[in-house]
């Protein structure tokens, strides 16, 4: 019997190595994404870059006609073309970038702050949580654009609010050491709080999840060692939520850039001005702009997080 088995063994098809099957099956699972990536990401990206160096028109036969222009499209973009709001593109980019770079840390810090608030222990915390995470739903851009009113706001309330902020502003200018610009900036942030809130839903949730993952024994140790609340935050909480901070920064940044007015400009070039070449040049600049700032930001942040650890 056993002899037979041994003799038969070579005839049976040798099974594939475990790791090879794993690899093949893994790629099968990844296949839709790979196809999609090549067709709908890499190809458009290469095409966009090609268009940006050409003048693109529709040929008589129905296809596309391209004439090489070198970097003329880019020169036109910054010197000749104006945005839909009649501004130079250098200005559009400068404004968008400074806005986003300023708002990103604000939103992240705000979401950390609200996560800390919802993580503390008090009565009615569940209700507060429900409210604090509402921006996940209320923050989708269609709602934030439609909720704004053109004329019929609750006029009385806004009037009171501006009066009040004027009072606080006067208080701050006369009784604090802060320079006026800083106070102006703070007041601007406070007045714009609703836009910050509407962007902070997911980040708050992530921070809360990270905070809940911290084991209570760490806090106990810190307390026994005599650390103050302040020290506990910087030495225990902050380093642990550091990695998620990085993620939140990137997420916020990308999210803000998605809503930036530059995206609308791309649309205007392509479908209203019918100038695909310059529109593509704008897209390319937009893309590299995002990537460059992001790289700088991540580099700085990893340094900060490391120091925190």
């Amino acid at each position, binding site marked *: 019997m056993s002899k037979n088995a041994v003799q038969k063994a070579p005839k049976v098809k040798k099974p594939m190595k475990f790791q090879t099957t794993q*690899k093949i099956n893994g790629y099968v699972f990844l296949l839709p994404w790979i196809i999609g990536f090549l067709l709908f990401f890499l190809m458009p990206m290469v095409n966009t870059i090609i268009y940006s160096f050409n003048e693109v028109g529709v040929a008589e036969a129905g296809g596309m006609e391209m004439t090489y222009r070198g970097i003329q499209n880019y020169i036109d973009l910054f010197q000749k073309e104006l945005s839909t709001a009649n501004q130079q593109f250098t200005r559009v980019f400068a404004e968008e970038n400074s806005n986003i770079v300023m708002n990103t840390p604000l939103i992240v810090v705000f979401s950390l702050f609200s996560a800390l608030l919802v993580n503390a222990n008090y009565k009615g915390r569940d209700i507060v949580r429900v409210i604090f995470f509402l921006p996940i739903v209320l923050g989708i851009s269609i709602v934030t654009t439609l909720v704004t*009113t053109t004329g019929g706001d609750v006029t009385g309330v806004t009037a009171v609010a501006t009066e009040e902020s004027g009072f606080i502003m006067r208080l701050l200018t006369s009784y604090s050491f802060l320079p006026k610009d800083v106070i102006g900036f703070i007041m601007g942030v406070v007045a714009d709080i*609703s836009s910050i809130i509407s962007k902070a839903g997911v980040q708050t949730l*992530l921070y809360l999840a990270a905070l809940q993952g911290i084991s209570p024994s760490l806090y106990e140790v810190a307390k026994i060692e005599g650390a103050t609340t302040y020290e506990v935050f910087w030495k225990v909480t902050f380093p642990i939520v550091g990695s998620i901070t990085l993620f939140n920064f990137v997420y916020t940044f990308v999210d803000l850039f998605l809503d930036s007015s530059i995206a609308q400009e791309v649309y205007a070039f392509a479908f209203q001005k019918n100038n695909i070449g310059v529109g593509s040049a704008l897209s390319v600049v937009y893309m590299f702009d995002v990537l460059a700032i992001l790289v700088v930001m991540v580099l700085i942040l990893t340094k900060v997080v490391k120091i925190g650890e």
Partner: protein
Amino acid sequence: MNKKTKAPKAPKAKKTGLFTWLKNAWNDNSITDPLVCKRTLQSIVFKFFGITVILGMCFAILYPILKLFPMILCDVEDLGNPDVVWIPIHYSIVSFKAAIRLVFGNFSTMFLSLLYAAVTAFIQVVICAMAGYTIGRIKIPFKGLVFGLVVFQFVVPPQSLLISQYLNFKNFDILGLFQLFTGDTVDLINNPVTLYMLSILGQGLKQSLFIYIFSSFFQGLPKELEEAALIDGCGFYKTYLKIALPNAVPSIMVVAVLSFIWNYGDTYYTGYFHPDGPYLAMKLNQQFAATNANTVTDAVSKWYDKPAASSFTYDAVKQAAVLIYLIPLLVIYFIVQKRLVENFAASGIVG
């Protein structure tokens, strides 16, 4: 015996109010103790500021929604009356009626866009879970490259690829095959197939983020489970279906909820690739574009015999429409919100 009587007393002592505490402190003279004084003062101040901040932030978050109600419930001709801030003088639901008549009709659009969001969310969960499983779990060549590309995709704004994606869909062709067989390329703009194809091929709304979530979740899953399954004779697919997926419920839920909400609110993909489709968010966007204000006002004044309809009316109708639009999302949110935090904690993005 002693222990039993003591145990219930301890929590009772905590619950004494400020007044009782003061009385006790007065009686045993501890009120003059500076340390006790300082601590009490501190806790009172902390509580005061904490409650103020929390209530203030709750109000700030709810304000955009709260301010809708007086406007919507107000009679159209009362709008803009400086006397009316929070409480309308004459109640009416004309704005609701107008919003329903203008946008929602028989609610078929809403149903269809909910359906679209649900189907897309389902597709995205399936595709992203598969891709995430491979990236996070399986040792494949070029794994680091694939992961890097996913992150890269997340970072690059899709709008920057809009032009060439649009042209691509306008004259759609795969390696010249369609041209070869039918003699012409396919126009996929304004075709729902485009949207589903994007989702199936992993390029839909924020899908790279979802792949990232799944891959980091599967990376953290203990290996022993799968090894046991493999030893017991499960193949690759059975292991995935029986071991990996059931464990990934938190990630699945997070991705499904986010994907549903975002796809329901999406105006980018639907607006460019299927502009005539039944998508509520897009319809609202078109109907209530600022250039359309007069149309809305005229319609309301004609339908409901309100000659005094003004730009305030346009706002009120717009807000009523937003509120109706939000109802399904809010219902879903209230159902899932309790589990949302734990699911996020377990979904693998954190940590």
